[in-house]
């Protein structure tokens, strides 16, 4: 394209004509950078287990992506960082004691079934890391529900299983609690979130809609809203999972709907369903509604009075 364009004096092309400097690798590696506080926190709290799961998951994810693309004789795009991000995100949703074989399986499912089968980055209807996790949580229900305390790795219940008021807010905030690798420290997650917001990668509408809905609903229903925000993987999901550009709506209005819908589903699952935590399900369920949300929040075509069908 560019070579042709240089030869001509007048270039006629469809919009957009003004592009910013963002590319897939730039965005992906800023996400990786934003994940560093969480990486440090998970290794600090869960030690070598965290490192083991992170390395296995990332390496498997990148290898699976490369294998799929070379099998299909497509250009191998592992250097864009998207498979690395999926691998790290998957690792952060896993419990610290999970055996390595399950991590490998989860990462393969995330990349192959969650992403490559649909044609690779940009086409996957569901968040790949969450597809991998959902697969693991139905296949190895026990392994996926074995939680240990930080540092000494004694089997304990997570704050969400204990109920509100048992664990002090400070512990929930700094992360000295049982849970998935990446979800425990609210502080580390927020640090990453602030950086992404500054970089303009994060869409505040989805986060605000998601967290706000959970806060307001739990408050109205007579539960402890601060506890519901800090416990479990809500913050991690809201900042790193729900805001995935591929699987969330493209319109601003649609993003509000996405966030509010996810919050609604999360509160319903946490308060009334069998599972203690529902962040994964709430995001997957909103992922599946994303094409419908896009379809019904199409903006007015410029210069026309009615909503367009284009």
């Amino acid at each position, binding site marked *: 394209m560019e070579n042709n364009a240089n030869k001509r004096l007048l270039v006629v092309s469809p919009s957009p004509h003004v592009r910013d400097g963002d590319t897939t690798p730039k965005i992906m590696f800023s996400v990786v950078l934003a994940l560093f506080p969480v990486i440090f926190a998970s290794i600090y709290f869960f030690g070598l287990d965290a490192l083991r799961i992170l390395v296995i998951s990332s390496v498997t994810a990148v290898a699976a992506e490369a294998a799929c693309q070379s099998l299909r004789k497509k250009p191998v795009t592992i250097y864009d960082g998207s498979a690395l991000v999926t691998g790290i995100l998957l690792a952060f949703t896993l419990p610290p004691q999970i055996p390595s074989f399950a991590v490998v399986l989860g990462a393969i499912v995330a990349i192959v079934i969650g992403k490559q089968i649909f044609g690779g980055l940009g086409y996957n209807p569901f968040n790949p890391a969450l597809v991998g996790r959902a697969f693991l949580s139905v296949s190895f229900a026990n392994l996926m529900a074995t939680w240990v305390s930080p540092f000494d790795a004694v089997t304990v219940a997570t704050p969400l299983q204990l109920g509100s008021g048992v664990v002090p807010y400070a512990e929930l905030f700094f992360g000295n609690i049982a849970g998935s690798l990446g979800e425990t420290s609210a502080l580390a997650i927020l640090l990453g979130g602030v950086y992404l917001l500054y970089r303009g990668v994060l869409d505040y509408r989805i986060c605000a809609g998601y967290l706000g809905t959970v806060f307001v609903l739990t408050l109205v229903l007579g539960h402890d809203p601060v506890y519901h925000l800090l416990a479990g993987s809500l913050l991690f999901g809201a900042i790193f999972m729900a805001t995935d550009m591929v699987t969330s709506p493209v319109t601003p209005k649609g993003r509000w709907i996405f966030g509010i819908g996810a919050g609604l589903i999360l509160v319903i699952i946490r308060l009334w369903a069998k599972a203690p935590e529902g962040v994964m399900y709430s995001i997957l*369920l909103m992922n*599946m509604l994303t094409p419908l949300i896009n379809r019904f929040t199409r903006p007015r075509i410029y210069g026309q009075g009615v909503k367009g069908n284009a």
Partner: protein
Amino acid sequence: MELFLIFLGAAFVNNFVLVRFLGICPFIGVSTKFETSIGMGLATTFVMVVASTVTWLIQHFILAPFGIEYLQTVAFILTIASLVQLVEMFLHKASPALYRALGIYLPLITTNCAILGMAVLLAQGSYNLGESIIFAIGAGVGFSLALIILAAIREELEFADIPKPLRGAAIAFIIAGILALAFKGFEGLV
């Protein structure tokens, strides 16, 4: 509240397609176009609601009193088939475009196991007539929802670079599997 829970249970928690795995044939077959999927969902919901009423009456006023429950399947299929015939004649007149779009799948509503499954489930359960109708509405809404969601996703994937052997029904089954995973979140709600 009780009625609302019955509706939620039939539509989401025990979604006929994604949790009970009934009615897979039209779910995969008619989910290629968004507009058609809405038509199919409406037609199936209509047949479900009427069929639930009629089969409930048949079950409680004919089969049970005379002790001939072994005729249940035959009686229910006959009922459903005649109802589908009715819908077919109506659509043929009212919306020929939809009639053509639904094609073979319209008469196949007769053999949609979601409808027979619903009738049999109702006959086994202890719902009264009102509750049965709510259950049928829930089942129809759940079926339509699953169908419309799959259709919207498949339309979005129309230009995706899906590996050749997986195009069409194969990728639809994989999406359906992931949808079923997501619906597990509702487990234990009702």
